[in-house]
């Protein structure tokens, strides 16, 4: 009989943070000894075999491979569209709205690194979605949140606000892709394991 993995000694963080949290799975990830060529292809980067999260998702390698490649293009493709900082802001706002403390920690850190606006990012984490981040960031944040609602509330108001803040359609499409992608990621991270507090510095 298969059972889930309990972590009785872990005390998961209870607030949003930009600290480097860990993550531990509730189901058994694959071990390196179990990996076939199909699994290595699914991991895309061999270094991901060191991650419990990716080794758990490697149970379905074809889906993982496609997901990873889509992820990298949506977030890292440097060819035009939304600046990286704002792709990460969109991911952070989505994770803040859904309540994924782990995802928000990773992507708020990236948003801070790429924007140099660490305090604004922290206010989004601390004060929540009403935090005033200035016209452009507010428009990105509010679009991500509207698209994250179920059913979606994303429509002409959000698009008009994004355009008024100076975004063209390529940038707006990146807002849509990044917020949508985190509706995929948040659900996996929240439901397959739990966050671990940052190591004391």
């Amino acid at each position, binding site marked *: 009989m*298969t*059972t*889930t*993995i309990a972590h009785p000694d872990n005390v998961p*963080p*209870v*607030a*949003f943070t930009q600290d480097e949290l860990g993550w531990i799975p*509730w*189901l*058994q990830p694959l071990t390196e000894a179990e990996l076939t060529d199909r699994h290595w292809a699914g991991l895309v980067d061999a270094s991901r075999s060191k991650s419990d999260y990716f080794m*758990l*998702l490697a*149970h*379905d390698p*074809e*889906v993982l*491979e*496609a*997901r990873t*490649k*889509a992820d*990298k*293009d*949506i977030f890292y*493709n440097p*060819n*035009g*569209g939304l600046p990286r900082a704002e792709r990460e802001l969109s991911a952070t706002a989505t994770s803040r709205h*859904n*309540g*994924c403390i782990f995802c928000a920690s990773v992507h708020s850190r990236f948003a801070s690194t790429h924007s140099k606006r660490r305090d604004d990012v922290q206010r989004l984490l601390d004060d929540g979605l009403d935090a005033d981040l200035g016209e452009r960031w507010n428009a990105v944040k509010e679009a991500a949140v509207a698209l*994250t*609602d*179920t*059913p*979606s509330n*994303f*429509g*002409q108001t959000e*698009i008009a606000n994004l355009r008024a803040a100076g975004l063209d*359609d*390529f940038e*707006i*499409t990146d807002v*849509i*892709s990044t*917020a*949508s*992608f985190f*509706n*995929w*990621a*948040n*659900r*996996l991270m*929240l*439901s*397959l394991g*739990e966050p671990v507090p940052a190591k004391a510095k």
Partner: protein
Amino acid sequence: MSAQSADLIDQVLSISPGSRLDGLRRHREVARDNIQRAYLALFEPRDASQVTPLERLVVASFVAGVHGQLVLADHYAHKLSVADGSTGLSSVLTAEIERGKTHGPYGNYPEGPLSSENKSGPHYTVKAEHRDILGSRLVAALEHAHLLVFRLRDSSREALQVLLDAGWSTSGIVTLSQLVSYLAFQVRIVEGLAAVAASSEQAVNSNVAAPLAAAAHS
């Protein structure tokens, strides 16, 4: 290329080659291709031993349905009715989708400073009369799917144990979780692009003649 192998998102949004939306999608061509590859990996899987093709369509139909994303809900409902034949699964599912519709995200945070942001909402369970028709695996899958769609921050280790107890394997749960989460992604890409298409249409409407706008409608 057959209709079956054409890009699904292009299909449901009637995106034609060279159109404005096509250009926006092809600006992230690797993502575009892999969003389709993930769809094929989920619905034409290389290994269907842990989650059957029918189970995949039942869950997808439910998830698209409770999101209220009509074109995708139609797409999966149609695939399900073709795959299912006449066992009555489709009508049960239609009823369960109506019962499951609500507004998310809601749920509880771990106890602490975020507790003031806790938001209550329905905890969906399959109707008693439908449980035998669906079977224990699908009952557990739909209840878990509803948790993932609407109150994802209520996710727990115990919720996964319910799936294991209903006969889902570890790798089956990974596929099920990917399926629900992918659908949550897919419906938003479609909603978002449809809104962009509608906004271009408005811009066209205000400048040029109406027939152009009608052609852009999807």
